[in-house]
């Protein structure tokens, strides 16, 4: 009798089958990113032993989040390509519904990135005594980033369903990820220098927080409750909107 090795659990149902299928095709990108992130964390673990280590860990954590968000953009490009090329008709000509199709992509974008991120964030705990690290901060960061990845996955999947073009989704994704927050900051600087009026840091934070909810965390206490609540609530509203409009208009 052949030995059976434990593998990824087999998912059941049309939605689960589609998630399983997408992951089996595109999991390489997430694995490659996790290895890259592992290397970054190896460095940060050493540096985290310095007095400013906790802030550094948060800084590295946010940087790594951007890398995972870039992976989400790249994977969402495949969804757009699938819809634009007509490959999606292959799946949508089965009992898989349009809502299930979009939800499968959202889950496939968000869940592996969140899982890989959380695992890599917890890596330092393997070599540093948990008593030396503020566990609340680590968990807060993990949940905050997870919320942001979810929030971003929903937005980018919605864009992919509407635009149906890989390049356009990549450009829009990068614009939302990096350019839009920078434009807000530069606009505030220009506004201040032209009018002399000051833009309060809270206002600026709130505006950038629309694109990156994680920035709403409390810097003094390193409390991540606000971004977690914001991104999860927004994600739920966006999921409902995407299911209502993007999926309903999905003709192939």
């Amino acid at each position, binding site marked *: 009798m052949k030995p059976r090795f434990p593998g990824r659990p087999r998912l059941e149902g*049309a939605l689960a*089958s*589609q998630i399983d*299928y997408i992951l*089996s*095709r595109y999991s390489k990108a997430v694995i490659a990113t996790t290895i890259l992130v592992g290397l970054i964390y190896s460095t940060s673990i050493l540096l985290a032993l310095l007095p400013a280590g906790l802030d550094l860990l948060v800084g590295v954590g946010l940087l790594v989040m951007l890398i995972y968000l870039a992976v989400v953009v790249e994977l969402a490009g495949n969804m757009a390509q699938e819809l634009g*090329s*007509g*490959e999606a*008709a*292959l*799946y*949508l*000509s*089965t*009992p*898989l*519904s*349009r809502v299930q199709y979009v939800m499968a992509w959202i889950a496939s974008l968000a869940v592996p990135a969140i899982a890989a991120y959380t695992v890599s964030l917890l890596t330092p705990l393997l070599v540093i005594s948990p008593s030396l690290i503020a566990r609340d901060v680590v968990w807060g960061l993990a949940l905050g980033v997870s919320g942001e990845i979810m929030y971003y996955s929903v937005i980018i999947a919605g864009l992919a369903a509407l635009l149906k073009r890989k390049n356009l989704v990549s450009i829009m994704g990068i614009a939302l990820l990096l350019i839009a927050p920078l434009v807000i900051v530069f606009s505030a600087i220009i506004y201040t220098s032209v009018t002399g009026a000051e833009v309060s840091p809270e206002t600026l934070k709130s505006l950038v927080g629309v694109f990156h909810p994680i920035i709403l965390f409390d810097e003094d206490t390193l409390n991540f409750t606000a971004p977690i609540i914001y991104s999860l609530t927004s994600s739920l509203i966006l999921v409902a909107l995407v299911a209502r409009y993007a999926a309903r208009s999905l*003709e*192939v």
Partner: protein
Amino acid sequence: MHEVVYFEDVYKAYSDKMALRGASFKIPRGVISGLLGPNGSGKTTSLKLALGILKPSRGAVLVLGDDPWREPRVRASMGYLPESPIYPRDARVRMLLKHIARLKKASMGEAERAAKLVGIEKMLEHPISALSRGYLQRLGLALALLGDPELLLLDEPTANLDPRARVEILRLIRDVSRMLDATVIISSHILPELQEVVDYLVIISQGEVLDHGPVEDLARRYRARMLYRVSTPNPRLLARDLIVLHYVDGVMLGEDSITVYVSSTHYRAFEARLEELASEGLVEEYSIETGLLGEIYEAAVSG
């Protein structure tokens, strides 16, 4: 419900054109139906509406009693072969078959049977990008057959194939529809191909359905010639007898049968003559093969 597909006053508009204009037709259970019309007439749109991957702008589409746009579950009983299927080039044949089988709640065993039926059982471990056009079409047919569909929608199933592959695919379609006892709708603009397989016809032109019905009825209505296959112990003698009739346009000899082209206006007289010959022992049995689709189509289009 007797009809498998029911279109009532269906309109479908794209951003730049109207693809269907008030299409109404129905297709009964168990037939092999041709969707006949030139390129751009609305055939593919009709099939996609029936499948529920397009939403009608107006009108009602019912397939197996359900609205396929709102009820994706009805697609579990349908198989679809698109005109130009786009496959994931990075996947292997087995992986795709397995996935579509799971979506249609079919087992991998069924998927392997479908692969065998269409002759790609040795290609299961091949990457899809390595398959020739003929094999890609076979793969499409295997995917369409998963889940033992009650309704098969085939969009230009022989497009881009060489003549040998065309013959093989047509043979497969005939065999499979018989085996599954499925209703089949084939969209095509190639008349000789449809002529060989269909017994029901929906004629479509510029987004409008001009007529629909059994080929036999349409042939009579449009006075197109009809093809009879007559079994006989003596084909040459029978052919000599029939060719002299003024409403017989031609006779083709087979080994133990003949095919006769008959003007549809005289089919009763022709059948009466066959009955006489049957009593003399020269005719064993006869059947209407089909009407000449080209003539039916021309007559329907010219009104």
